[in-house]
Structures are given as C-alpha cells and as structure tokens.
C-alpha cells in the first residue's frame, strides 16, 4: 500500500537517480504529508461542529446553560416531524432497493445490453436538481384538480398528498436516491464475480430465488447497507421538495423554529447530525456484522 503514495515526494525523486530501492527508502515522508492533510481536514470539519455546540450552551453574559436541549423534547412538532422523516426514509429505502436490486442483478447476469439504459435512467436524476424536479411535480400535481377532478385518478392525487404520510415525497425521494443506490450497488456487483457465482450456484442445483437471496444478497450486504445509509441521510436532510410542496418533515421543522429560537435551531442541527450518524452506525453494523459472511465481500473487493 505504501508503494502507492503520491505527489509529495515526486519533485525530489525526479532530481535524484530513479530506482525502486531508493524510492522505497523514502517511505517516512508521505506519512508526514498524510498526517498534515488529515489533521487540517479534521480541523476544518470539526470546527463548525464544536463552535455550534459552544453557541448552543454558552449565552454571553449568562454562562453555561443547556436549555436549548432540555426544551427540545417538549417543543411543538419535534417528535411528529422526526417520526415523519424516519417513516419517509424507511419507505424510500425499501422502494429504491426493491426497484434497483433486481434490475442491476438482471443486467449483470443476462441482459448486458440493457446496462446503458439502466445506468442512464439511474444517473439522470443527478442531472435534474431537486428544485427543478419540484417545479415539475407541482405542475403535475396541479393537473389533478384541473383536469381529472371527475375521474377516479383524482382520488390517487389526493392520496399521494396525504399530509400524514405524503407518498409523493417517497416517490420524489426515490428518484433522488436512485443515483446513489445505483452507484453503491454497481460497485458491490463489480466486486463480486456475479456470473461465476450464479453459474456455480445453479450447477449445484440452487433455484433462482435461492441464488438471489442466499448467494447474491449476502455478498452485496455491504453495498446494500451503503445504499441504505445514503438514502437515509438524504431523506433526513431533505428540505427543498418538502418545503415547496408544503409538508413538514424534520428539516422543514428546523427552519420553522429558527426565527423565534436561534439557539434551539442550532441545537437541533447538531442533534440531527448526531442522529444521522448514530443511525448510520447501527445500519452499518447490521450490514457487516454477521462475522462469517461479512468477510467475503470485504476480501473480494480488495482482490478485484
């Protein structure tokens, strides 16, 4: 691994006589470079977190107070919006995996010609910013009352906009999550030799559902978990679509209290990061823990 170290020692090495032995002798230098990069990055990424924490607990002139946190649980709408966001996230993860896994596996095994189509379909949402998507969604949703009010479809339009559980957000979030789900799954499938695994399992007499559920999915566990993380974080933090469509999940709620209670809004911002982090850790455990199986994807990724 250390043989791959990059840019820093390049300049001197070009002047000195080149040689593998000499290059190897300079190993300690990249370590300093690496430490400096990581330390600077750590400082930049930790500073806002630390400073916001100080901001929430230190009131100038009054000293330390934890009111911003203690008042939080009782705050109007806190639990409701959080639960709504978590529900939306669960539905989005389920839907996006149910759509993407079969398609990607199929493309790997039997329909390589479909591959560019699936890839473009999955990556296109990256090109369309959420705010542009929401302009399209509002336009489509307006068709309901305007053109379809006498058809059964109108009920569908009302149902997907149910404020208790806005299905339209799940659909929009699934679209937004597809690129990340695709990337994660595609990387996982690349690491595993799918055709060989499938052929081996098939020639041992496994049925197709058995192949997918007992052979492929365990090998994809890490990338499934990765796709789920990214989707979860995306849904918990999403603001644009929900606010412009008039729903109030977590991120929208934070903004709604920021005017009156600046300190609490910062406190919730920190907490939302921590909540996301915790969920990701729990999920990553779930994705990689079962010891015997988890070794397989990790090693196969390194080897390929």
């Amino acid at each position, binding site marked *: 691994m250390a043989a791959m170290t990059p840019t820093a020692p390049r300049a001197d090495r070009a002047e000195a006589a080149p040689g593998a032995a000499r290059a190897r002798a300079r190993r300690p230098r990249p370590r300093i470079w690496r430490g400096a990069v990581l330390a600077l990055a750590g400082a930049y990424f930790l500073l806002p977190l630390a400073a916001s924490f100080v901001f929430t607990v230190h009131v100038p002139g009054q000293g330390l107070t934890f009111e911003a946190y203690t008042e939080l649980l009782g705050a109007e709408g806190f639990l409701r919006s959080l639960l709504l966001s978590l529900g939306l996230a669960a539905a989005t993860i389920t839907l996006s995996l149910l759509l993407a896994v079969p398609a990607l596996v*199929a493309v790997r095994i039997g329909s390589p010609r479909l591959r560019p189509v699936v890839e473009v379909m999955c990556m296109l949402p990256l090109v369309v910013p959420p705010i542009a998507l929401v302009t399209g969604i509002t336009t489509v949703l307006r068709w309901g009352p305007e053109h379809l009010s006498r058809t059964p479809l109108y009920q569908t339009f009302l149902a997907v906009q149910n404020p208790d559980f806005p299905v339209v957000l799940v659909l929009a979030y699934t679209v937004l999550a597809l690129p990340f789900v695709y990337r994660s799954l595609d990387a996982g499938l690349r690491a595993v030799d799918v055709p060989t695994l499938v052929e081996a399992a098939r020639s041992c007499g496994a049925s197709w559902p058995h192949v997918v559920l007992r052979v492929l999915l365990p090998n994809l566990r890490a990338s499934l978990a990765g796709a789920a993380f990214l989707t979860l974080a995306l849904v918990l933090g999403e603001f644009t679509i929900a606010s412009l469509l008039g729903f109030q999940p977590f991120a929208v709620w934070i903004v709604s209290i920021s005017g009156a209670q600046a300190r609490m809004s910062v406190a919730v911002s920190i907490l939302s990061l921590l909540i996301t982090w915790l969920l990701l850790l729990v999920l990553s455990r779930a994705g990689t823990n079962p010891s015997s199986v988890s070794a397989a994807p990790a090693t196969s990724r390194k080897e390929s």
Partner: protein
Amino acid sequence: MSAPTPTSPTRGTAGGTTLRRRRRGPRTWLAALPLLAFTGLCFGLPLGAIAFGAVTRTDPGTGATRVTGEHLARSLQGPYLDSLIGSVQLSALTALLGGVLGVLIAQALVTSRSTALRSAALTASGVLANFGGVPLAFAFIATAGISGVVTQLADLTDLGWDLYSFTGLAVVYLYFLTPLMVLVIVPALDGLRPQWREAAQNNGATGRQFWRHVGLPVLAPSLLGGFVLLFGTAFAAHATAAALVGGSVPLVTLKIADALSGNVLTGQENVALALGLDMILIAGLVMAVYLPLQRRSARWLR
C-alpha cells in the same frame, strides 16, 4: 426477482444449456422493468411537465395552449441570467476546490494503514456529504456568522470576513462537497493496483512518470466524474443558500423558489419552469462529457 428457469441443471446436456441460455435473456429483462417503469412515471412525467410548461403558454380565459419561446427568453435575461451565471461560477469554483481537497484526503486515507481511521473517515464522509441543507447553514451561522463563536473569538469581521457572501457560501459548500469527493474517489484510488506501480518502477519509471503515464490516465475519468458530481451538487444546492444568504448572492435555485412560492405575478411559474429547464440543460451538457469518459475508466478499474 428473476423468474426461475424451469430446466433443472441435472439434465446437464448440451441441449439443456442452449435452452437455458435462450430463455435467460427475455426473463432477466423483465426484472429491470419495474425500475424503468418507475423512472418513466415518477421522473419522466415531471420532466415532461417542465419541458412542456417552459415552451407553452395557456390562456387562462380561453384555455387555449400555444407554443412560445418567451419564458425561455425571459429566463436568459436580466436578473435571471445573472443568477444562472452566479450559480455556474460558484459551482465550478467549489467543485474544483472540493475535488482537489477530496483527492488529497482520499489518497491520505487509502495509503494509511489504519483501517479504523479509514472506516471512521469514510463513515464521517458519508454523513458529512449529506450534511448539506439547513442544519449546515445553521451550524455555520453559529460558527462564522455575525455573532458566531469563531467570528467573535478571532475578530473575523475586522479581517473582512463575511459569511453571507460568495466567498462565505463557497466555504460552506466545501463542507459537504469535499467529503463527497472522498467518497467518490476512494474506490478509484483503491483500484490503482500496486502491481502497476511496481511494474512501472521495474521498468525504471520515476514516481512522476508513473503518475503521468499510468496513474492519472487511469484516474482521469473518475476525477472528471467526481468533478461533475460536485458541480451538479453545488449547482443544485438550494436549502443551504436559502437559509444563509437569502437574496444577497444571485443563485438560480433561489430565483426558482421565489417564483414558485407564488407571491409573484402570474406567468412567473412558467419562468420557473424555464429556469428549471436551463438548469437541466447545463447539468446535462456536463453529464454528456462525463458518461463516455466513465466508460473508458471502467476498462481499467474493474
């Protein structure tokens, strides 16, 4: 899930294999159908609505719809054009900076022998890359805003610091763009095999030559892909900018939200759709450069 093939492998004759092969094609194709149908409906329909609304005008009295270029023309004039240019400038600058910083950090992680550090940093990147939006804006307001902790401690205001400006916005954007680049580029850096380096060294190549003739060409598509992803993310970012700068920095996402929120003249909605179309076209152009390159990189980084 792909449907089970009826032929049992125990038959194991040449005839059985060809039969299975013939059936596999159409059936696996079916498994991709739900995904394609979903994207067609939930993604294609809004897209179609954007394109249709951007180039047509419906007369509210008669209900007649006619094709017009006026919305697109208006979206490329005056303040709307300024906002488009502002967005492109900010996105290009932050994508470039975030890309370079992300590659440096990713290389430091890849070469580090500590797997704990690596996995912790990757998890952190996963979280931070999605820590955009409102919470990030509030965290930075508390840190470097007018009454922010660091602003007070270090007298940043006297140094000319202003969070609610182009520069301030760039610093905030880097907070989620850099981890995103780390996430994107780590697999590519992992894919650079040590054997290639050893082969280059055995042939007498210097480190510089290795990077110039092997490393960078193999990485180039991934690097460009990362840049594109960062550009798109920065270009699309709305919540952070909305919470931070309001209207003081012209950005196209803020203009669209203004036009959509409805407290403006009629006809603005179609300008919002036209602006949305402009955004999609710009992002699409960048993507059109990226996809062919991605295919080239797949040859090496399998």
